[in-house]
């Protein structure tokens, strides 16, 4: 049997270091003033926690809440339907990143659109769109842009190239979302079924790669305005354990701060050039609907008005569906992301809702909490 990527990861599981960190966390946790619930915002962290059973190494007074996951997971059906509709146009080539292939919309996913004859191309880099546009001058090439802060500057770089080089047949459908907006929303959120609901989140683990671009500064408001500490962490199990230890120490020492665990690539300011490029072409949108969380104000980006000639949402407005589509009634992804429920408490988990036929956001991508529970369920504590 040949080695796979997962074998590569195994090398970063140093059981001795993990165990040593677990002991340290358990020791520190004995003096915790209260039970703490730590939200890992990013699905990459959820994946690490479940894969290495880090949740089982936690003492009883530390609990993980699995956050909004990945940009693919939170993409609502409405936006997938846009991509599908655009792809079905005769003169359109729809270009997007590979992650989008299986995400279900109301009429199916983009792979289904392709099976029906639509020209959908999955690229490795946004810049690959240029070649497609040059080779197909009679077609409109629409780049369906997805991703958190980490991927946004690459789209901005493509826009910059298109405009500066006068390429007339590339358009953009922007779905870039931001990480702090849902964090803010989750702090304020209410469970509609339970009238009295307070925020369940005592601390956040922030994803390192977002901060490579945006800096750690994007989380500054959480300790300052909400009294919730944030530690920006890498994705290896040892990184996550170290981040947890940093959080526990903050509580024990009565501190509430923004700290960086992953200092190798993350700075306070981030990549200023990339930030400026984004700000040149894009602006925060009024509101964006997140699968599982609903509409969140200023949580996504769109092209600035002066670049509307490149905006597929403006140009194809007449044909793009506008109906709101509710999340599946049985799906409890919203509650999971709010920390009220765990995936295995969902009535459709693993039965109707599976990675091969996902109903909700947390099952859509391998980074979603439900998908991680499904895959690594044998590691679950009772």
């Amino acid at each position, binding site marked *: 049997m*040949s*080695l*796979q*990527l997962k*074998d*590569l*990861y*195994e*090398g*970063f599981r140093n059981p001795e270091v993990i165990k040593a960190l677990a002991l340290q966390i358990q020791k520190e946790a004995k003096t915790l003033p209260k039970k703490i619930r730590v939200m890992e915002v*990013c*699905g*990459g962290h959820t*994946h*690490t926690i479940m*894969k290495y059973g880090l949740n089982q190494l936690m003492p009883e007074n530390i609990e993980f809440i699995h956050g909004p996951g*990945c*940009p*693919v997971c939170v993409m609502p059906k409405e936006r997938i339907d846009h991509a599908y509709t655009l792809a079905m146009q005769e003169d359109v080539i729809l270009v997007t*990143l*590979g*992650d989008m292939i299986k995400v279900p919309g109301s009429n199916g996913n983009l792979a289904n659109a392709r099976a029906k004859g639509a020209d959908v191309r999955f690229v*490795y*880099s*946004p*810049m*690959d769109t240029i070649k497609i546009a040059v080779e197909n001058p009679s077609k409109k090439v629409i780049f369906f842009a*997805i*991703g*958190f802060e*980490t*991927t946004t*500057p*690459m789209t901005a*770089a493509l826009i*910059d190239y298109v405009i500066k080089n006068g390429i007339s047949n590339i358009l953009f459908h922007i779905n870039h979302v931001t990480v702090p907006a849902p964090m803010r929303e989750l702090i304020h959120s209410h469970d509609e079924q339970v009238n009295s609901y307070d925020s369940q989140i005592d601390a956040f683990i922030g*994803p390192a*790669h977002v901060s*490579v*671009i945006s800096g750690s500064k994007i989380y500054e408001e959480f300790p300052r305005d909400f009294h919730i500490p944030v530690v920006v962490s*890498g*994705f*290896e199990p040892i990184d996550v354990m170290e981040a947890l230890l940093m959080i526990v120490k903050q509580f024990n020492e009565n501190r509430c701060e923004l700290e960086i665990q992953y200092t*190798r*690539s993350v700075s306070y300011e981030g*990549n*200023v*050039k*990339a930030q400026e*490029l984004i700000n040149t072409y894009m602006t925060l949108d009024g509101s964006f609907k997140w699968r599982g969380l609903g509409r969140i104000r200023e949580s996504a980006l769109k092209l600035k008005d002066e670049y509307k000639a490149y905006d597929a949402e403006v140009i194809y407005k007449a044909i793009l569906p506008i109906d709101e589509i509710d999340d599946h009634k049985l799906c409890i992804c919203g509650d999971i992301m709010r920390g009220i429920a765990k995936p295995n408490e969902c009535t459709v988990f693993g039965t109707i809702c599976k990675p091969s036929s996902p109903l909700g956001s947390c099952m859509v*991508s391998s*980074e979603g909490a439900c998908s991680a529970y499904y895959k690594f369920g044998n590691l679950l504590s009772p």
Partner: protein
Amino acid sequence: MCLSIPSKITKIDPETNIATVDTMGVTRQASLDLIDQEVTIGDYVLIHIGFAMNKIDEEDALESLKVYGEIIEKMEEEDRRNAILEDDNCPNRA
């Protein structure tokens, strides 16, 4: 979970601002348009969907490359290539 394998710059085309990088033996191209500091041949960078995101301190880069190297050494050529490319394309980073 992403590995973040550092890539070493082996060539820079000043016309296009595109670098040729070596990621543990796999050669590929990456745009330097997003890099906000001076980079030169021999520097280490992190790559994400065709772009260099940031420069990494050489000492840190070598340290992680050593760990990755020990594991990758055991892999066959095709798997090695896939693993390295897949790392870069990891959706978690998006």
